[in-house]
């Protein structure tokens, strides 16, 4: 259960970095750490999920 920290304000696009400053890629399957980040983590996870959705041919 790796600790992460959300550093952006509510008005800017949130970015995620670990406590030692490294950028963290958002896994589309989510993580407990993202849930623990609350609304921001949830939004990031759902965005990642959305991007990972297979596109449907019409």
């Amino acid at each position, binding site marked *: *259960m790796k*600790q992460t*920290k*959300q550093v952006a304000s*509510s008005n800017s696009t949130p970015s995620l970095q670990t406590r030692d400053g490294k950028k963290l890629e958002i*896994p589309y*399957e*989510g*993580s*407990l*750490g993202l*849930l*623990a*980040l*609350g*609304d*921001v*983590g*949830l939004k990031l996870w759902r965005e990642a999920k959305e991007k990972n959705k297979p596109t449907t041919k019409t």
Partner: protein
Amino acid sequence: MRDNRKLLVIGWDGADWKMINPLMDQGLMPNLEKLVNSGTIGNLATLDPPFSPMLWTSMATGKRPYTHGVMGFNEPDADGINIRPVLSLSRKCKAIWNILTQEKKKTHTVAWWPSHPAEPINGVAISNFYQRAMKNTADHWPIAPQSVHPKHMEDHYAKLRIHPSELTGAHLFPFLPMLDKLGPSHMKEVQQFRHLLAENSSLHAAFTNIIRTQEWEYATVYFDGIDRCCHEFMKYHPPKRDHIPQDKFDIYKDIVRGMYQYHDMMLGRVMDIAGEDATIMLISDHGFQSDHLRPKNIPIEPAGIAYEHSQYGIIAIKGPDIKKDSLVQGASILDITPTILQLFDLPIGQDMDGNPLLSIFEDPNIPKSIETWETVEGESGMPSSQYEEDPNFAEKMLDQLADLGYIDKPDKDKAIAFKSTKNFCDSNLARAYMDGGKILEAIEIFERLYQEHQKPWISYRLAVCYQMIGQHQKCRALIQQLQDGGFYDNPVMETIEASLLMSEGKFLEASKLLENIETKVDHTYGGLYLKVARCYAMIKQPVKAQKAIEKELANNYDNPYAHQFLGIIRLNHNRFKEAYECFMEAISLEYGMSEAHYYLGKTLIALGEYEAASNALEVSLSINPQNNHARLILQRVYQTHLDKAEKADQIFQDFNSYCSGEITIVSGMPRSGTSLMMQLLEATGVDIFSDGERVSDDNNPKGYYEHEVVKKINHNPHWLKSCNGKAVKIVAPLITSLPYNYRYKVIFMERDPMEIYKSQEQMLLRLGKTNKKQIFSQGIFQQIEQTIKSSKAWLDNHPCVDVLYVSYNDLIERPQDYADKLTRFLYKQIDLSIIQKTIDPTLYRERSVSAMESS
């Protein structure tokens, strides 16, 4: 006190230091560790019944359930037909968020139990129906109507909910490392866990959004994750117990630990957002057994799962003006709302049952007070009575409560479901009365419920109530009824009977019964050995008493009464330092035990620590002002050891105001004329307290004037309230057991000790208890002299005793001397003629040589 206070209150249902401490020691809860190290922590005593909606409402109101009105998980609807889950509408008084709304504070609440419909407070309110997924799918998951205030934010918060089906293995693996190997037989457990993880994460998302995006001065959130997780999976938490299957243990052993860690992660996020200047209070409503005290079986009674709870929840608070690395003692869940009011420097309602925890503050303001907040005008955001209930939703919620084990599945017959819900709420009301010391109110409800249906859990509590107010005959009759009805043969009822036997002074019988119970129960059966120890102590078997109490502590080290009892044993054996440790341990577990402070005071006196002793006795008196014995000791400490004469005088002045009546006592050694004096008082019209059981005989041809209960004064002095305004005979060896909360007029009969000795010997001969004249026993003679001496010393030093010493010999020889003395002493005209008529000089049979010479 800061006027720009920002306070976050976070509720973790069922969180317990016993689980938390080892996790913090291993570095697995770093955020809580930070909170603990930078603030004040302590135990938070729960209430009975320990049902979450009742407890959390007590937290939010500072009031007991019989005042706030929330009586369980569900309740009868006002329509007299249906039942519904408890709602914010069930609450009959203002919650802290209503008071703060009135005070124009920006106030937000998330999911307090119960809080549906959401209340129109000065901020965002999210109800406890908001996160419930129930049987919906992620694609079709309408938000429960009225679960968000203000309504225009409903969509915004609806999107922050996480449906259980959204969770992936990545979320579940940290709790269930063997998830991918689990077959369908584990589906139910995994689904339940998935639900609770999703629901609690939804609440966290909503709460973090509120405190990130809204202005706030007070924000609160409630999580039920730990409690639900513990009810389902604590049985699998290490160490493994013999009855737990190995395969299930391997699968589920990490869940509870993981849930605590997850809560710590959520806490860390909230602390980050709140910033260093915020005050953060973390609380739980009760603890949860996590060790060898975990019950193997859950009793069959409504909400029986609450037997898994333990008595103490947690409190941890940090922030500006809050003491760092400190411990708060004696906190109760009733103290939360008064403490929040104190944090905002607002007055505390005199109608609240709790008190502000002043010891958490570096420099506390003097608390302000208000008669009640209920009549304070202004928009408080109390729930609207215009709530339109969605019957389908209510039904689904009830189903979910049943799935969680909080309630029985509601009967399909609405009338039966209504009746059983009403009875459950009524029995909870009665339990709340019991817990609040309102025993008569509790008895009234329990008697009615018992008439309707003789459920064991009703009868047990009714029996305990009878005992608590000394109605032993009713208790005995109830036990008899249960025996006749075949309900008796179980340890709970037998334990109640053992307590009854103890109240009746039958300690040997009680100890035998308790030993028998010991063979039927396991070590989780609470308090059994403490009772055994009490019995042994009363029948003067201190070694057995000590062994029993050590057994109790080995089973449950957190039993404060066991520590206190061990302390008393050690105090009686002059092991003062060890006694001190015991009383300190008891107090640290349960600060509100006035007796523990009292004994601590006595111990500190023995150790020569007079200042500390005076503090302990002051605390004891602040908790129980009726304890005049503590007052007497304190007065002497101030007078003799601390040279505080003014304080001593002040204490002494309080003494009389805590005496609840006046009793005339006739005392002296047996065969010193006590029966004669009782006879004389009766002849002059004084009411006599006597049961007439001991009939007149050759030794006392005119009667004994005794009462059987007097012999039990050592362990049960409650009967003294029946003696108010009357005269009662209490022989000298028992006189020092008189409690300190009455005024006594003692007529102490004196007689030559040698005459007493001879008269007692003659009496035994007449009774046939000895058949020959014994050789003179110097030991017995000295004992008579010593008892007279110590009784007189006690009487002379007792602050609420007036004593008149009457010489038996003089009374016989010169009754005229006593007519005036008795008249003045009793404030009652005692005519000489009556004395003369009462006295029969022929009964003065054992005259000493000196008495014969003087006559």
